[in-house]
């Protein structure tokens, strides 16, 4: 689905100035031959896609592969601006209630059929069909009516202006002529998709690899690289050995691999390493229903007692940056003026004393009305970075007189027994930063119900108003004002301590040329990558 696909592309994003001072690695520029067709890119992936019908998938490997096979009506370009994909252009009516898409003519499905508005209408209908087990119906339920007046026009009507709507039409369009009237959950397209994208499906060897080959009639031109091979290697240490042995051409490195293990002349000659902030942030979230965290000063104190730079250096080896709010630094919704308190243990102690935490027990732990200041941080199993982060926080809070315990839980039981039942004091988790800055679901006070995402029970009337305002206008300047103000409020309220935005650290074999890092990462322009004739391997 759109935002998922964008996430995949965009998670490989490049920012020219990195906060930690070290210059982004630049690939070695050897004398390159002219662009040539041929060769294959072998990508390593920990997970295997579950289905290549994107509307049914909710895992990122599925969307990563399907993203090359299908197109949406719109997409984000290299500068993260929304541009047409299958839609040549679009108009939003002045009241913001109607969007009309003008579709590209002459686009072919991989089986030769023509792409028309019927395909778009089908995709919309199957997504909102109650019989379709999809996680993506929500955005499209806001649509009051959809129509296809002619084969190259598609129009949707909304009850209220809905700013994230435009981006939602980046969802992958499915072939109506192969699916209409059939049960989508039993379609063989799940294992052998037919799309309009730059690559067509060739084969899927279960548990081993998926092979795509270039679609010569692609509407933006034939991609240079002939094949895209997605190899499934579930262990990241094995994947790294495969990279070094030449078994794969590209993988995302861990901070240790990036900073320590690949810093050799030999590696740098064979691979280009890239580095840019990823579209996620990690945070320490407080259960605001817990009396311990009800007082804003306590939350501010904890933030002041934590050194974010220390976490970035200790956990990410400096390959990331401190986070101060829920947006990615450098994007238009990000407010660069907002900084929270910074590391200041003295200030933390003062704030705690103001909040009534004055006495200390024999072990140096703060007390108030006979209660010790002690709480447990929960995080999920299998994420070493979060566990290390928790340990650093534990140590820092101990110095201001707060005792922290750490508990690591298996994902499903973490969610069911702790998050859903509000049975937690604090958690370390991460959110994906969406392309569209609408963060209504995470912060609005109406979203605190069971299974909803505001599980910390944050409630601030001004934030609620701004969130509503921000999603009801298409005017980017107005929206920016809303989201900038929200960041100021969050920085003051500290419902989360925003911890860090890690960097994405891909390494690509240096025989690939034409890679142009941009705010959208490196993969956005994959169809223009090439390998000079004399260096082609496969």
């Amino acid at each position, binding site marked *: 689905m759109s935002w998922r696909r964008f996430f995949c592309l965009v998670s490989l994003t490049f920012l020219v100035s990195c906060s930690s001072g070290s210059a982004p690695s630049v690939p070695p520029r050897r004398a390159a031959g002219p662009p040539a067709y041929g060769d294959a890119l072998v990508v390593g992936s920990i997970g295997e896609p579950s289905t290549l019908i994107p509307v049914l998938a909710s895992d990122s490997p599925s969307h990563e592969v399907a993203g090359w096979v299908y197109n949406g009506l719109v997409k984000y370009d290299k500068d993260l601006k929304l541009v047409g994909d299958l839609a040549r252009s679009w108009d939003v009516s002045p009241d913001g209630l109607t969007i009309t898409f003008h579709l590209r003519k002459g686009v072919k499905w991989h089986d030769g059929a023509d792409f028309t508005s019927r395909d778009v209408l089908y995709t919309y209908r199957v997504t909102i069909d109650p019989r379709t087990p999809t996680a993506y119906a*929500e955005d499209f339920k806001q649509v009051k009516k959809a129509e296809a007046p002619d084969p190259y026009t598609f129009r949707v009507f909304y009850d209220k202006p809905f700013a994230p709507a435009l981006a939602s039409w980046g969802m992958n369009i499915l072939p109506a002529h192969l699916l209409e009237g059939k049960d989508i*959950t039993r379609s063989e397209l799940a294992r052998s998709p037919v799309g309009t994208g730059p690559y067509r499906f060739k084969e899927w060897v279960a*548990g081993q690899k998926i092979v795509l080959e270039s679609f010569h009639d692609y509407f933006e031109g034939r991609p240079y690289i002939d094949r895209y091979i997605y190899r499934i290697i579930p262990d990241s240490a*094995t994947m790294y050995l495969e990279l070094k042995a030449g078994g794969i051409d590209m993988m995302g490195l861990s901070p240790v691999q990036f900073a320590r293990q690949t810093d050799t002349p030999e590696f740098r000659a064979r691979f280009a390493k890239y580095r840019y902030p990823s579209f996620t942030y990690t945070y320490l979230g407080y259960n605001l229903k817990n009396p311990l965290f009800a007082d804003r000063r306590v939350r501010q104190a904890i933030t002041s007692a934590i050194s974010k730079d220390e976490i970035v250096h200790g956990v990410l080896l400096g390959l990331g940056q401190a986070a101060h709010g829920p947006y990615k630094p450098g994007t238009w919704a990000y407010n660069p003026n907002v900084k929270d308190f910074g590391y200041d243990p003295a200030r933390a102690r003062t704030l705690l004393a103001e909040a009534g935490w004055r006495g200390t027990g024999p072990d140096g732990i703060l007390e108030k009305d006979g209660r010790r200041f002690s709480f447990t941080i929960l995080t999920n199993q299998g994420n070493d970075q979060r566990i290390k982060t928790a340990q650093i926080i534990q140590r820092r809070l101990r110095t201001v007189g707060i005792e922290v315990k750490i508990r690591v839980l298996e994902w499903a039981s973490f969610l069911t027994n702790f998050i859903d039942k509000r049975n937690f004091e604090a958690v370390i988790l991460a959110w994906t930063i969406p392309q569209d800055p609408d963060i209504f679901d995470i912060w609005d006070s109406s979203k605190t119900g069971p*299974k909803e995402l505001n599980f910390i029970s944050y409630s601030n009337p001004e934030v609620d108003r701004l969130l509503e305002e921000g999603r009801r206008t298409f005017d980017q300047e107005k929206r920016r004002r809303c989201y900038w103000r929200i960041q100021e409020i969050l920085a003051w309220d500290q419902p989360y301590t925003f911890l860090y935005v890690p960097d994405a650290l891909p390494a690509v074999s240096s025989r690939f040329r034409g890679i142009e890092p941009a705010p959208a990462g490196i993969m956005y322009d994959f169809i223009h990558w090439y390998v000079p004739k004399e260096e082609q391997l496969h």
Partner: protein
Amino acid sequence: MLNYLAKRILAMIPLMLGITLITFVVIRLAPGEPVEAMTALSPKITAETRQRLREFYGLDKPLHVQYVTWLKKVATFDFGRSFAPDHRPVTDKIRERIPVTLSLNIIALILEFGLAIPIGVFAATHRDTLYDKGITVFVFLGFAVPTFWLALLLMYFFGVKLGWLPISGLHSLGSEGYSRLSWFGDLLKHLILPVSVATFGSLAGLSRYMRSTMLEVIRQDYITTARAKGLAERTVIYRHALRNALLPVITLLGFSLPGLIGGSVIFETIFAIPGMGQLFYQGVMARDYPLVMGILVIGAFLTLVGNLLADVCYAVADPRIRQGRG
């Protein structure tokens, strides 16, 4: 004998029912639901969508209704469709992975028995010598060394440093264009590391077992008799002692049967081998009930068949049991 067989086979039916009932309940006791994996912490999910998904998978019905529905289908050998987003029939998912796991395990099993039995016999006949101690150290080393660590070291040495062997997977890229023979050679090359690591790790149990049964047999009166009547030591050991010492090994072979379709998760993950272990692990993590149940039922069935086969073979090999004297 036939009577005995019929009784044993009949007894398997309630046993299977009990096993399915318990596993069905236990897997559902684990917190979380299949829908969870798809929807948890996703901003685009409402309570209504979640409810719709639960209905789609039949999770809104009471547990006993779900069990009976499942059982009815299984009675016709229909294990249902996976809850994973691909919705493929469980049998398809198992079928595409069984050949890999099965052949890998059979090769490893043959190597394991082929190596461990001579090692055990040798250790027993050279009891308390330097050889015996050296062997003990060697097999326990294999037992104690973590598989993933050894695997990574070997991959680094043979794959990256020397470049002799492929690191992971089963086939080289482009191997579909090879001739039959080189395709097979390519596959064998990919199997060398995983099979050696698996075999090395499992030598200890069986060889120690072999050593102790052998020692026990050697102490028996009939061995003393054989020696007393002047037979050559070779004949005593290999004709008289070994044949008796091998009897319990039959039981072990029977126990290995269900293990043949079960893979090791860590092992398969390290070598990127798409086997049953990974499939099962992913199924459990995603709470993919039909898949987990399918694999467990097949595993339980094979265990029961394995026990039965072992008992039958035992009876065939040992006249004392065949004639009903314990």
